[in-house]
């Protein structure tokens, strides 16, 4: 039990999380290079093979399931590199992770963002 465990909808990227996601995040890191981005686009599945991802991690990459990627050890700064390739915005990804459309997410942000009230602790109302 960590002091941040009771914060809802938040995956703190600590050592435990980092160990779980190391291969996944290092795959994302490889997309910093243009040549790798092209290879990945050409054949995503082949590009992922041999990089040590678990089958679930590979599935989540192919599915662009950003919440699942977090749960499997991903860090948002790394996994967002996949979204960049797809020309998706951070609002799109934020919306997907929180079950909203990109438009709804943008509107929420324009109205001052997600309220902190009710979102500090699990079970808080």
């Amino acid at each position, binding site marked *: 039990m960590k002091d941040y465990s009771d914060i809802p909808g*938040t995956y*703190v990227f600590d050592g435990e999380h980092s160990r779980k996601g*190391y291969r996944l995040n*290092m795959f994302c890191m490889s997309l910093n290079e243009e040549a790798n981005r092209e290879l990945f686009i050409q054949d995503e599945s082949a590009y992922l093979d041999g990089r040590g991802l678990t089958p679930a991690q590979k599935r989540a990459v192919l599915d662009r399931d950003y919440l699942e990627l977090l749960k499997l050890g991903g860090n948002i*700064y790394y996994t967002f590199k996949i979204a960049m390739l797809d020309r998706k*915005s*951070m609002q799109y990804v934020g919306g997907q992770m929180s079950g909203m459309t990109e438009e709804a997410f943008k509107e929420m*942000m324009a109205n001052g*963002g997600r*309220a902190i009230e009710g979102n500090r602790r699990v079970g808080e109302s």
Partner: protein
Amino acid sequence: MARIVAGIGTSHVPAIGAAMDNGLTDSDYWAPLFKGYGPAREWMRKTQPDVAIIIYNDHASAFSLEFIPTFAIGVADTFQPADEGYGPRDVPVVVGHPALAWHLAENLILNEFDMTIVNNLAVDHGLTVPLSIMFDQPDVWPCRVIPVCVNVIQYPPPTGKRCYDLGRAIARIVASFDEDLTVVVFGTGGMSHQLQGERAGVINQPFDIDFLDRLVSDPIGLTERPHVDYIREAGSEGIELVMWLAMRGALGESVRQVYRHYHVPASNTAAGLTVLEPV
């Protein structure tokens, strides 16, 4: 003798840089934010520092999980804009100040800061967006830059107190550098935001305003804030604010707020800007 003449706290949201790079600053969405940057840019034009020490964090650009320095300092002649996944930003190359940077690196280490010294450092939006915010779009950046890169992505970042103490040490060491230079210190990142998870988009304006207030009046109090409070109150990425404490530490006991601007949203983030001068 080199001396620190001001501190700047500013968010470094990538979308702010992209808005400038793509000529969107007059759009309905961006105009209110950029309008607020005007007076700060005007102040900067008058201040004309020789060197900017920019406390920022890398976002999986120069550093990956292979290698995670808590505090890194760039001592190279130049720093290229990083390719963060969509090609490097089209901004000028960042020119370093190796003599002062090495003076800082050597003396920080002798003063028990466990710096990583870096000669090869691509700089990402964390460093270049604050330059764009303060200097707009010049052909060359009008001052030398010393990047001080803080890990805030792999938990745990250094504590707020450790960052503040780093700033204090930077001030002492700058003052011992034997060349007549004016130096500004940037603290970057924040303000409240969370990019990840079901809680993505969380913003806490009262927290941010309180932080901006206490940065002037009660920085020591702020250094006592534990990481969990940043994450809970300001979002998982709001923890970047510890870097503003390093800037504040470099300014000494009392400061005067020259300017402040605060706007929500910039992409998923509350954007803040504060300009402080030591008194």
